């Protein structure tokens, strides 16, 4: 009996070691809870405007590194001065991750940008949640920066390139086309009091 016990336990042990070695899950972990990150993007200023970016690019002391998240082809067509190209889909590749870590450990602020603002949203939130805290996003992305930089010191604004700015007065537009705003029955959602869902009723009690 004792031998059987030994053999079974040893087999189990081997099996477990194998399970242990094979999944090879990466070491990525969330360093912020979802609530914390939400609070941060709502309250903190994590965007840098194209104007600021122009200044940063022109300034001497390097405390900032720009990461170009676009495709290498687009990157080669033109990018911010000294920007490093890390295509957003390859962010998790080991050497890119290591590169980012190094920048971060050197105390540099990492500024992400894509062609437009949207491209940087995912990578920003992802990196921010997994431990990068000196992290910013170039507002409006490369397009907005380019237009601003090209306009020199002009006061030109490009509202169509500012993220989340409504480009229309939607209600007015609808009205103009013949439909009154009253057409839209808005459902005022009642926050439901969360009913602790009885954990699957089909599974009934133990004893």
């Amino acid at each position, binding site marked *: *009996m004792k031998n059987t016990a030994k053999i*079974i*336990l040893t087999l189990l042990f081997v099996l477990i070691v194998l399970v242990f070695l094979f999944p090879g899950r990466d070491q990525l972990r969330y360093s912020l809870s979802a609530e914390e990150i939400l609070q941060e993007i709502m309250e903190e200023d994590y965007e840098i405007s194209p104007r600021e970016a122009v200044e940063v690019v022109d300034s001497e002391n390097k405390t900032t590194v720009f990461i170009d998240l676009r495709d290498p082809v687009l990157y080669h067509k033109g990018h911010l001065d000294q920007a490093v190209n890390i295509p957003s889909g390859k962010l998790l590749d080991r050497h890119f991750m290591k590169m980012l870590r190094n920048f971060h450990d050197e105390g540099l602020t990492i500024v992400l940008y894509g062609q437009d603002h949207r491209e940087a949203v995912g990578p920003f939130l992802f990196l921010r949640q997994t431990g990068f805290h000196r992290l910013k996003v170039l507002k409006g992305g490369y397009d907005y920066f380019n237009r601003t930089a090209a306009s020199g010191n002009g006061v030109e604004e490009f509202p169509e390139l500012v993220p989340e700015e409504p480009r229309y007065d939607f209600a007015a537009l609808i009205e103009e086309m013949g439909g009154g705003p009253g057409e839209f029955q808005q459902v005022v959602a009642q926050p439901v009091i969360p009913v602790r869902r009885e954990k699957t009723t089909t599974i009934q*009690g*133990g*004893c």
Partner: protein
Amino acid sequence: MKAPNRNDRSTRYLNPYLGGVLLGLLLLMTYFITGRGLGASGAVKSTVVATVNEITPEYAHRSNYYSQFISDDESPLNTWLVFEVLGVLAGAFLSGALAGRLKLKVEHSPGITAGTRLVAATLGGFLFGLGSQFGRGCTSGAALSGSASLALSGFLAMMGIFGTGYAIAWIFRKLWV
């Protein structure tokens, strides 16, 4: 393993750690297949409900308690736990038979008579039955499955059972040692 008599197969048991690992894996498998743990006292409850329903159906339907477990199209005995306990009986019999432990006897400490032991056992069973209803499960249903699934009630039941056991063990030592 301390078998008093090396040649006597009937007192040779599985290594407790191996038994524990196997039991744990079985419990895990049970969770994986059925989504809930093991149990035992629930089967007795079903038997109680079934007999009461058989004897006085009106009372059973009127009672807040019994009516929870009675449905018109199915016998109260047709539950998962009843089948599980039937399996337990078969499995234990098999194991006992293989190890040569099948023997009709009253097991009691030399300090007490068989009669005392039987009275104590019945009383103990009565209390355990009562307690298992309060605890919504017995040692296997509440303490074992509950603790394994990290349920607070499982740990409370476990602490209740073993804590009380240790607290009063001295009083009842005559029964055992």
